[in-house]
């Protein structure tokens, strides 16, 4: 049992040590290392937002969304076309391009932040609207039908971005997306500003979700996840709550997509693969612990840390003459991500940070009398800790 408790800090420490020492050992330039680490942390934060959105779907409500990339991509593209200016040459064609018109507050440097508020809100709204439309035919059905439908919508949207030439500039994508507050500092220091912004965004989402999960709304979602029939018997509108959860999660993913667009400055269809946009985020949530918001963030850190560390290892493999490993590293790490999902499901289904059992502040005020102290896991409602979310249901259609 002791070794079991050490896994989480060990995984955390291992990734941290590797991500700091590997670049530091090769580079004498401290500034470069810090810049690399900041970039790494920004991506962790963006992935954390996406994983938090997925946690609303899967962790809270048990909605099996295998099309995270659809909402991620829609968010990124929406943010891009809202904040960019209109196209300047005839070779670049896209809709939107409102960026120049959105600085209508004549003071406070509004062009530095106002378009991005609109962009992020727009990303959330469009992503949420997509989820709403998709939820109507699918959320009444078995959850695996929804999973198939979400894969389909992701594939369809990717095709649309490529084939509809005037929409978002086809497969060449959109470049030169502006970023919030970028003119306030020199470009080399801008990373730190952006890091602050995106961490603030993660904290906002986290606070909102923690409050929501402790609210009656969050408890209904968990009740639906655990036993839909009982929740329906208690008079809850299952379909309505599921739609709300699906839309809220998708909006968070859209916000994550917007942050990604501002950071990478470029969105193109080949960035939004099923692997990068969906599976990686699933791996993060499952490794971190579905149902636990902090677990989602930890999972984003560990999985993206593993991803970055293996990227750094390539240089070492090249030094050591292990050419096969150097060239194949990107595939090997994908393989590890896939195997990791299966392994965690088999060996540690609750993830590194299992879901916290007490979700209501009201429950915390009650005297602790369930089980001896030091063994908080032995309560009667702890089924989630031994087992992943188990919901056997017939088709609801």
């Amino acid at each position, binding site marked *: 049992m002791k070794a079991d408790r050490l896994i989480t800090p060990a995984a955390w420490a291992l990734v941290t040590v590797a991500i700091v020492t590997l670049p530091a050992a090769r580079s004498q330039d401290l500034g470069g290392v810090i810049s690399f680490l900041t970039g790494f942390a920004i991506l962790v934060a963006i992935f954390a937002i996406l994983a938090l959105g997925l946690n609303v779907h899967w962790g809270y409500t*048990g909605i*099996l969304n*295998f099309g995270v990339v659809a909402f991620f991509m829609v968010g990124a593209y929406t943010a891009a076309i809202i904040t960019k200016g209109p196209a300047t040459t005839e070779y670049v064609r896209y809709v939107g391009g409102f960026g120049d018109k959105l600085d209508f507050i004549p003071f406070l440097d509004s062009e530095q932040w106002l378009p991005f508020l609109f962009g992020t809100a727009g990303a959330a709204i469009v992503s949420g609207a997509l989820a*709403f*439309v998709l939820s*109507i*035919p*699918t959320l*009444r*059905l*078995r*959850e*695996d*039908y929804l*999973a*198939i*439908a979400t*894969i*389909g*919508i992701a*594939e*369809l949207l990717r*095709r649309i971005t*490529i*084939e509809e030439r005037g929409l978002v500039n086809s497969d060449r994508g959109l470049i030169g997306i502006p970023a919030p507050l970028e003119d306030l500092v020199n470009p080399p220091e801008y990373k730190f500003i952006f890091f602050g912004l995106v961490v603030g965004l993660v904290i906002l989402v986290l606070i909102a979700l923690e409050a929501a999960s402790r609210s009656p709304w969050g408890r209904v979602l968990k009740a639906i996840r655990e036993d839909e029939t009982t929740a329906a018997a208690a008079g809850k509108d299952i379909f309505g709550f599921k739609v709300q959860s699906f839309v809220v999660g998708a909006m968070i993913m859209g916000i994550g997509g917007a942050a990604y667009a501002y950071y990478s400055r470029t969105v193109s269809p080949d960035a939004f693969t*099923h*692997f990068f946009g969906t*599976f990686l985020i*699933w791996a993060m949530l*499952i490794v971190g612990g579905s149902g636990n918001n902090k677990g989602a963030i930890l999972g984003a850190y560990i999985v993206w840390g593993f991803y970055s560390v293996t990227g750094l290892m390539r240089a070492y493999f090249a030094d050591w003459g292990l*050419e*096969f490993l150097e*060239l*194949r590293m990107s*595939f*090997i790490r*994908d*393989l590890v*991500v*896939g*195997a*990791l*999902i*299966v392994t965690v*499901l*088999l060996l540690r*289904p609750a993830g590194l940070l299992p879901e916290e059992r007490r979700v209501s502040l009201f429950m915390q005020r009650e005297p602790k009398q369930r089980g001896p102290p030091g063994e908080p896991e032995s309560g009667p409602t702890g089924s989630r800790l031994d*087992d*992943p*979310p*188990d*919901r*056997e249901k*017939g*088709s609801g*259609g």
Partner: protein
Amino acid sequence: MNRESAGFAELLNKARERYPAVFENLSGAALWVLFAGLLIAALIFYTQFFVVGVIFGSIIALGAIGLTLIYGIMKFAHFAHGDMMMLAAYLAFFALTGRIVGERTEVDLGWSLDRLPGATTELGPLSFGYGLLLAMLVALIATVALFVALDRVVYRRLRQRGSGIVIFAMASLGIAITARSVILMLWGAEPRFYVPGINPAHEFPFGILLKADQIFIFATVAIVAILVYLLLFRTRIGKAMRATSDNPELARVSGIDTDQVIMWTWAIGGALVAVAGVLLAIQAQLKPELGFAILLPLFAAAILGGIGSPQGALIGAMIVGITQELSVGVDLSILGREILPLAPGYKFAVAFVILILILLVRPRGLFGAKA
């Protein structure tokens, strides 16, 4: 999609709730008429697309039959099906050529089926020799072993723990990612072919152009489909499988060894996946991404036919295959606006539209049992 289509969906759901029996019969009849009309129109007016659609549909059918059997008996969506098809195709490639990526250059292991005497000599008008048939057999055995092993290592443990269907689906997704990564690691991202060069098309009556390889694909599928039919409807284990698919609890209390049924299901699914994968690679090419892309047509066919119904999957696959070909081949304008052909990139997305239509109108599919 817009508010109108959302309103339409709501209306459908309301109608379904209020008049379940009428809705069931009407929706089934409407779908039958729609698809039968589509197929007959395609056969008469667009024979070429119809025939090519049948060829592609027959490949989909093999995958979808395995998928629907697994879905019916184990009650979960096997998301690794498409990637396993591709893995099997690459295993056949490996058995045939012995080639694998090396450090900078390709490694040839020095032993492979194409070194057998006359193995690459074309069989009649086909583009390949008997080496590929042997390679398909090797891939088939390997895939069956892999499926049974995966059940032992992963799925059986989940079953013993009583995990929900969703956990199974997710585990299969993890396996799908792993399979795709193995392909990329061992054979790289570049498209590959079993045989270099092209297989010329021949002209048949009614102006149909077909390659000899395509006729081989259709013949193989026909033989395999008959074998599956005999297995399911003429053997004890087939009967047990159908019983388990209908009602697992009842099957168990009737003394059916469900563990054995599950093992057989994986074995049959694996064999079908291997043949389907190799045929897909003959028709198209070997490409790692194809595995995930083919999932949509597979699921569309299985759900269209009705989960658990092999004959439904067969017909569903034909409908999906033909609709895909029509959608990118036929010229159609309505009110002066060009509707078809769609850009070729949308080919697989057509399956998604069929899928959504079925889920909206009749989730149990054409042949599915009542919920």
